C-alpha cells in the first residue's frame, strides 16, 4: 500500500480522519453493491484485494450520481417554478418530481457530458412538416 512517497509525509488530523474513514468503509454499505463494482473492477483490470477500495469506488460513483440527481432536481424545481400560476393549477396533478431527460441533460452538462435527445420521432411522413404542431 505505502509505495508512494506521499505516504510518509503528512501526519496529523487529516491522516487520522482518513484512516478513520477507510476503517468506516468496512462497515459502510454503499447503494451500489460490491458485486457490481467488482464486476467492473475485473472488467477494467483493477486488481486489489482490499474491500475498502472497492467501497471507495462505489462511494465515489454514488456521490457522482447523487450530485447529478441533485442538480437535476434543482432544474426540475426551477422549471416548475417558472410555470405561470393559472397553468400550474392545471398541472397540479403532475407536480410530482419526475426525472426527465431535459433536466438530466442540463445537470450532466455541468459535468462535461453533453446529452441530447432527439427532438421528435419521425414516425410518419407528415411529422416535422409543420413546426407549429410540434410540441417541443
Amino acid at each position: 500500500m505505502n509505495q508512494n512517497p506521499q505516504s510518509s509525509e503528512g501526519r496529523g488530523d487529516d491522516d487520522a480522519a482518513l484512516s478513520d474513514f477507510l476503517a468506516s468503509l468496512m462497515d459502510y454499505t454503499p447503494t451500489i453493491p460490491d458485486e457490481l463494482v467488482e464486476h467492473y473492477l475485473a472488467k477494467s483490470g483493477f486488481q486489489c484485494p482490499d474491500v475498502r477500495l472497492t467501497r471507495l469506488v462505489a462511494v465515489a460513483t454514488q456521490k457522482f450520481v447523487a450530485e447529478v440527481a441533485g442538480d437535476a432536481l434543482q432544474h426540475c424545481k426551477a422549471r416548475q417554478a417558472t410555470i405561470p400560476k393559472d397553468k400550474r393549477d392545471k398541472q397540479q396533478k403532475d407536480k410530482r418530481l419526475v426525472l426527465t431527460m431535459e433536466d438530466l441533460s442540463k445537470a450532466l452538462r455541468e459535468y462535461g457530458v453533453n446529452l441530447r435527445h432527439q427532438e421528435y420521432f419521425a414516425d410518419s411522413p407528415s411529422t416535422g412538416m409543420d413546426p407549429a404542431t410540434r410540441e417541443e
Partner: protein
Amino acid sequence: MNPMLKDSNTKATSKLPRRGKRKKKGLEVKDAQVAENPSEFSFAIAKIAVAQICRSAGFKTTKSNALETLTAVSTRYLETIVRLGASFASASNRTDSNLFDLVNGIHDLCSVEGFPGGSAIHKGDLLRSSALREIMNFVNLSDKVPFAKPIKCRDVSEVTIDSGTLTCFSNQAKTHIPRWLPHFPEQNCDQVLVKERKCGEKYWEHSFAGDENSVISQSNHMNGKEGKDTRMELPEGREKMKFKIRGEEEKHVGLGVNMLTGVCKGRKRVSWNHNKMNGCIIDNNQDEKR
C-alpha cells in the same frame, strides 16, 4: 464473487432485478426484461442502484429513458475511475492498485468541474486531496441506502470455462492468479481431452508417438476412403505425384485421392515435395527407434 459469472442461468438471475423494480417505490420501470447477457444483467442491477440514489435525492418518479441514460453515464463513470486507477498502477510497474492510484483517477475525473486544490494536485499530498475529503463528507453526511435486494453469489468454481475445455478444480489457493480468472485445468486434462474428441481426430504428435507401426502398416491400405483418417500418416515409399492445373486433365499417380476436393480445389498452384516429406517421416521413425 463476480456477479456476471452467475448469469449463465438467465431465468434465475433475471428475477432479481425484476423483483427489485416492482418493490421499488413507484419508480417508473415498466418493462421487466430478462437479461440475456452479463452486460444487460449488470446494467439492470446498476439501474436499480441509480434509481435508489435518485429516490434518496428527492425524485418521486423517473422517466425510463432518463434513468437508463443516468445509469449508462454512471457505469461509465465507475469504469473510468477504475480504468484510470489500473493505468496509474501499471504506469508504476505494479499490478495491484492502491489508494493513491484511485485518488489519482478520482482527481482526473473531478478535474472537469474542478475542486479545491486542483491546480496543484501533483505537488500536494494525495491523501489530503479535497476530492477525497468531499467523498468523506458525502459518506458522513448522507443517509445510508443499502441495495434493495441481496445478490446471491454463485461460487466461481462452478463456472465452466469454455466448450471443449475441461474445468478442473484445484484446491490449492494460488494467490498470484487474479480472482476473476478461471481455474487452470489440471495436467492430466490434456489426455482426457484427446480421448474425448468426437471425430476421432488426434494431435499430430500423438499420431506418431502413440503407434510407431501405424505409419508403415497403413501405408499399403491408403485409398480414398481412408484418406481422411490417415491423412497425417504418410506412407514411406510413394511415387512422385504430378498434376497440372491450367486447363488440362489432372493426373493422380500413386494415390487414389481426388485432389480436386482437397488442396487444389481453389485452382492455385501448389508445390509439394513428397521426397522431403517422406524423408522427414523416415527420420522421425528412426529417431523414435533410437
